[in-house]
C-alpha cells in the first residue's frame, strides 16, 4: 500500500486471537504495523460508559460513533475516548458548537463517506470548520470497508484540503495526530504509567 506505515483495524468481537495474528501477518508482510481499534455504538449515556469501561484496556484506539447529541456530548468530554465520529447520512446529529466546546476527543472524518457519496461534502466541511473554530483535533481516516475505498495518503490530504483544511493541517490529520494518539495509548498501557501526567521515570533500589 503506497505510503502507509500503520493501520488501525476494527475487529469484530468474535475474532479469535489466531485470526487476528493471521491478519496482522498479512499487513506485516507489506510493512504496515497494525493496531486494534474499537468502535463503540450506543444510544444512551449508561450504555456508553459501560462499554467504555469494558473496551478501553482491550484496544489501541477507541472511537465512539455518535448516534445522538447526548451520546456525542458525553463521548467528546470523556478522557478515555480518542476519537468521535458521526454518520453523515443522519440529518439530526452532527458535530455542533456545543459538542466542540467540550471536546477532548478528536473528530474523525471518514473519507469513505465522501468518496462513496459526494453529497456529504457540505456537511463534513461544516463539521471541520466547527472543529477548527474550537481547536479540536481532526483526524482523516479512510474508514474503508473495501479495497475500492482506499486512497493514497497524498490523495487523502488533497481531499482534506478540499474539505477546508490547510495543507499542513491535512497532513497532521493523516499522520502526526493519529500517531500521537497511538503513542499516548501505548504509554498508558505500559507499566511505567501511573495516571495522566505521572509516570515512573526511575526506580530507586532501597
Amino acid at each position, binding site marked *: 500500500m503506497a505510503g502507509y506505515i500503520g493501520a488501525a483495524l476494527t475487529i469484530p468481537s468474535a475474532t479469535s486471537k489466531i485470526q487476528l495474528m493471521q491478519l496482522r501477518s498479512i499487513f506485516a508482510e507489506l510493512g504496515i504495523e497494525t493496531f486494534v481499534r474499537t468502535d463503540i455504538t450506543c444510544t444512551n449515556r449508561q450504555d456508553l460508559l459501560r462499554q467504555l469501561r469494558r473496551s478501553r484496556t482491550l484496544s489501541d484506539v477507541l472511537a465512539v460513533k455518535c448516534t445522538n447529541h447526548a451520546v456525542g456530548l458525553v463521548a467528546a468530554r470523556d478522557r478515555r475516548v480518542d476519537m468521535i465520529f458521526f454518520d453523515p447520512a443522519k440529518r439530526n446529529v452532527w458535530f455542533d458548537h456545543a459538542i466542540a466546546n467540550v471536546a477532548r476527543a478528536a473528530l474523525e472524518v471518514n473519507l469513505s463517506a465522501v468518496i462513496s457519496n459526494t453529497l456529504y461534502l457540505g456537511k463534513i466541511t461544516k463539521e471541520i470548520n466547527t472543529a477548527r473554530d474550537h481547536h479540536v483535533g481532526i483526524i482523516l481516516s479512510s474508514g474503508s470497508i473495501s479495497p*475500492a475505498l482506499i486512497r*493514497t495518503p*497524498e*490523495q*487523502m490530504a*488533497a*481531499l482534506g*484540503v*478540499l474539505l477546508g483544511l490547510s*495543507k499542513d493541517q491535512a497532513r497532521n490529520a493523516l499522520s502526526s495526530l493519529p500517531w500521537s494518539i497511538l503513542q499516548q495509548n501505548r504509554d498508558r498501557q505500559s507499566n511505567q504509567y501511573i495516571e495522566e501526567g505521572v509516570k515512573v521515570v526511575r526506580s530507586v533500589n532501597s
Partner: protein
Amino acid sequence: MRRYLLVKVCSEKPVAFTGDQLMDAIMVAVRKFFGEFGANQIDPRMIRFDSSKAEAIIACRKDQEGELQAAVALITEICGSSIAALTLKVSGTIKSLST
C-alpha cells in the same frame, strides 16, 4: 509550467478501458467538483496511457495538482465497473514518472 501525475487504476475484478474512457471519468469528476471554471484552471490532459499496467500520466497546471488529486480520488467507476484511481507520484517532469 505543468505538473504530471502518475495515476493507477485498481479494481477487484479486471476492467478493460481505454485512455479516453479514463480521461472522460477524470473530466467528469473535475467538472462535478470544481465546475467549468475549475476545469479550465486545472486544465487536465492525458499524456500517456499504458493499458497493460492500467497506468496513465495526466498533466495539469502547476499549483492545481492538489485539486486534480482530489478529483481523481473521487472517481469510483469506469464503464460501470467499480474502481479506485490512485495517484502514485506527482512530478514536474514526465521522465521521472516514466522510470
